[in-house]
């Protein structure tokens, strides 16, 4: 089931009403969350449920085994087996064909021609997200940061909680699991804030991202219009498509969770207002970057080691992060590019210089801040070009076309969605700039009731009239 569907419009009020009617029965409430989440997830394909149930069950059992030896040293063997199983499942479904293809290519390079057919494996939606969530539980239990739970229903609810199940935020057991172990009470301000955040998320996804997607696909999927301007516009639109899509989904997920009295972590903090690449990575997909920081970067030594090790650790985290996104050399290339851009800041200890709010105490940024934001935006855009390309070869061809100034002719047949997209991008940037110190782009609102509701109505009108039609959430493929 996707958020922008008729089914979800009917599903959410039904679950909401039932959920709060059970507010005095915690276990029943959690059971409802599990059932609703499994219905939500199984709507794509019921077979996906087997895998998530196995991952949840396996991680729960590992936690129980660790609980039995709680007063002793944590079992490294148990952790290793748990990691092996979870990452193995992820590796099989997501990366098997990639490794097979690379192996065949390598053997071909040595003159051998093995007959290996690719596996017919469906990639379950959101597998990377819930697998990492389960891993965080296992690792936190090992580190004794959280006591394993005996309550299977609460645990299954933690893994499968439907708002964040398929595209994050990737929640930590230390944040989300305790919320399922304690009674939740309805909060009117939270629910209103949640609705507002959902509305904003729908605007970002259905109006901004989907209109940008039409234009990005128009130019980037069409090999015959490969002039530099077309590529530039396509990549620019994709930059906002991926942001609107992913951050929109996160806003809907976080807003929806508030309706159920559950607080999820923030996932985006206006990354296109970042002043350098380090700040960009503190603002983009925060749940994933902090996951890699806490479970990969720091265990490898983090920044508290020699320069050589710091470089190694930085490359490791960015390459793995790129590879997490998909089994393609373009994602690895994207990670490597960001690693190369991040390293100079890290080595010169300038990676933590922009910790304050941009344009703090002012309405507009200073010229230097604006220049920094523009530079960082261009760098991010360059990275997205690699991210969007189907192959390194295609990315190279786009770069070549970009550098070809002779191809900058007037564009013909510019889609209508492009005009809408440009207008909505400006609206998005203005709203997010005004709310840059808030949790999301529509957190601030007029205090006058009538004005506030006019604004809500205006957003609904924009969604109804300017959403071009259902485009898939990009991050579902991860």
């Amino acid at each position: 089931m996707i958020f922008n569907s008729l089914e979800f419009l009917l599903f959410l009020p039904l679950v909401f009403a039932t959920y709060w009617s059970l507010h005095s029965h915690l276990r029943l409430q959690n059971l409802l969350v599990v059932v609703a989440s499994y219905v939500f997830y199984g709507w794509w394909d019921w077979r996906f449920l087997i895998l998530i149930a196995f991952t949840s069950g396996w991680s729960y059992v590992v936690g129980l085994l660790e609980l039995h030896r709680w007063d002793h040293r944590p079992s490294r063997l148990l952790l290793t087996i748990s990691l092996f199983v979870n990452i193995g499942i992820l590796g099989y479904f997501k990366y098997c064909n990639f490794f097979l293809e690379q192996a065949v290519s390598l053997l071909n390079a040595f003159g051998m021609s093995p007959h290996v057919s690719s596996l017919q494996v469906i990639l379950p939606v959101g597998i990377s997200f819930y697998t990492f969530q389960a891993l965080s539980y296992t690792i936190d239990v090992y580190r004794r940061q959280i006591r394993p739970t005996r309550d299977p229903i609460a645990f299954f609810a933690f893994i499968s909680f439907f708002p964040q199940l398929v595209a994050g935020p990737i929640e930590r057991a230390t944040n989300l699991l305790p919320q399922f172990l304690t009674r939740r009470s309805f909060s009117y301000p939270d629910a209103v804030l949640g609705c507002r955040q959902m509305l904003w998320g729908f605007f970002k996804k259905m109006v901004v991202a989907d209109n940008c997607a039409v234009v990005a696909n128009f130019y980037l999927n069409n090999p015959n219009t490969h002039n530099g301007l077309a590529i530039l516009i396509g990549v620019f639109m994709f930059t906002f498509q991926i942001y609107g899509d992913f951050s929109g989904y996160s806003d809907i997920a976080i807003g929806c969770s508030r309706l159920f009295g559950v607080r999820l972590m923030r996932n985006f903090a206006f990354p296109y207002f970042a002043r350098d690449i380090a700040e960009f990575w503190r603002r983009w997909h925060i749940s994933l970057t902090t996951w890699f920081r806490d479970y990969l970067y720091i265990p490898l030594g983090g920044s508290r080691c020699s320069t050589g090790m710091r470089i190694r650790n930085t490359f490791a985290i960015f390459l793995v992060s790129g590879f997490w996104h998909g089994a393609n050399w373009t994602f690895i290339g994207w990670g490597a590019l960001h690693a190369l851009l991040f390293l100079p800041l890290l080595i010169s200890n300038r990676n933590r210089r922009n910790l304050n709010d941009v344009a703090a105490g002012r309405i507009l940024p200073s010229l230097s801040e604006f220049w920094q934001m523009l530079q960082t935006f261009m760098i991010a855009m360059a990275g997205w070009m690699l991210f969007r390309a189907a192959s390194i070869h295609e990315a190279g061809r786009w770069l070549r076309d970009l550098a070809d100034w002779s191809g900058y002719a007037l564009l013909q047949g510019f889609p209508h969605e492009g005009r809408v997209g440009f207008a909505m991008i400006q609206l998005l940037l203005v709203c997010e700039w005004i709310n840059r110190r808030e949790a999301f782009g529509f957190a601030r609102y007029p205090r006058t009731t009538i004005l506030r509701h006019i604004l809500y109505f205006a957003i609904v009108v924009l969604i109804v009239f300017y959403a071009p039609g259902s485009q898939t959430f990009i991050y579902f493929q991860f």
Partner: protein
Amino acid sequence: MKRFILKVTAFSSFIVLVFGGVCLLEIKSEVKAYRREIIAPAGSVVLVCNDSQTAMGLDPEVCKGLFNFSANGRTLDQTMLMLPDILQANPNVLKTVVIDISPATTVVDYGKSLSEIGFQAKYWLIHYLHYRKNVRSMRGGLKVVRDNMVGRRLRHFSRAMRGKIPFKSSLIGGYNPHDDSFLIENKKAFECSVVDKLKACTGLENLTADNQCFEILDSIISIARTSGLRVVLLTTPWHVQLRDRCGEKTLERFTAVMKDYAASRQCDYIDFLRFDPQDDRDWRDANHLTKTGAQKLATALYLELQRLDAL
């Protein structure tokens, strides 16, 4: 919580009322336009009233006497609902009805999305208010809505409301040619149209004589014959790539079922499923023709209708 539920309900109701009001105004103007449009131009003898494959694929200038009242996204049951009105408006003009029975018309399943819900309701209202003579009960109306959950049609409709495409090409009907060819300009889009079509035509391999489409076709044939019209069943072309992906066996089976049906109902059957205009520029996407393709198909149809003495 009561306060929250009340506020959300009140706001949602307000949205529904406002959009409903706008819809009702639109319905009024649409019904007016519809009454103007269903009158066949002088010299018409053949009526085609199907979906985008005929709306885009048959040039009435080339096929003399053709009244092309097809519209993008129209389904067979909508044709069934509209036919009595069109025939009543043109009692002595038309002689033959050509019904498209290609896979994308008979065995089709489109998706729904949240942004289309308002237009779904509006579309149902149009049917109910204007065609209520033919929709005998609320259950019948709901069945029309349920069977008509066609996202693409409503997107066309919403685009027409925003002035992006001619209003005529959305709900009402008429020849709606296109010049662009995905096959030439955008191979990825063409590939998507192949995949889309295959996904939408669910159940093609399992098509049998008791499929619901035949029930609707029976009604259409009965309505046409009551008005003294001859019925010709037509299968519009599919591009060779789409045919190959679908599988020749499946399509042969489909053609056999359609042939049997036509024979059992004493209707003529023209099979253009494998019609090939010989030029990539004639194909817009996997099952729609461009302007030049529409001219070629209309010429071929004209010759076949002449052969059948249906003109």
